[in-house]
């Protein structure tokens, strides 16, 4: 069964303290891996798409990387406004005609000033 697991479930950082969030998946033949940010009471906001192992994408203080079995979201010198839940989702081969995404449970990040 296709599964996505994110760790840790929750992460508390001091402002400026860099860290990484992990997303591991059991899907074979990944069609795409997506990172989203979700603020309380809001829908997920698209951040990145990664398609192949070795690929990297950056946006401000965030960098996403992809290997054959996992993805990392690196947060460099975070600020309090980076506090949110970060969701990872994969598009398995079986969804080639559906676009179905399988989400992890998310990592809730809190950055304290």
């Amino acid at each position, binding site marked *: 069964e296709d599964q*996505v697991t994110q760790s840790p479930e929750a992460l508390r950082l001091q402002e400026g303290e860099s860290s990484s969030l992990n997303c591991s998946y059991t899907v074979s033949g990944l*069609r*795409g891996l*997506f990172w*989203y940010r979700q603020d309380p*009471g*809001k*829908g*997920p*906001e*698209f951040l990145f*798409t990664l398609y192949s192992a070795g690929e990297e994408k950056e946006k401000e203080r965030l960098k996403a990387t992809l290997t054959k079995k996992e993805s990392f979201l690196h947060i460099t010198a975070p600020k309090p406004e980076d506090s949110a839940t970060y*969701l990872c*989702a994969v*598009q398995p081969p079986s*969804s*080639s*005609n*559906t*676009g*179905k*995404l*399988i*989400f*992890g*449970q*998310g990592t809730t990040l809190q950055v304290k000033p």
Partner: protein
Amino acid sequence: DAGVTQSPTHLIKTRGQHVTLRCSPISGHKSVSWYQQVLGQGPQFIFQYYEKEERGRGNFPDRFSARQFPNYSSELNVNALLLGDSALYLCASSGSLNQPQHFGDGTRLSIL
């Protein structure tokens, strides 16, 4: 440009009732997907429609149904509501099946 819009934002129903949730995709997007998000969990796939045809269905009972209209807007219908249907219902749109999906802020459904 307007993002994905969903209505209503909040809804309170009682067990056994029926509910209709609505979604307008980003202009130019032909694909609409529906997800259910229970508190503390990631979204779960319910349906996807592309060019007004159902392209995918998740592991949800037949009480859940959807459709897409000629203007690409969509409705999600849930019959015979159960307490366990309480959740945030998210709609997402994309230009095609393999492009990133962009989400609306959802409809918060509470079942009493």
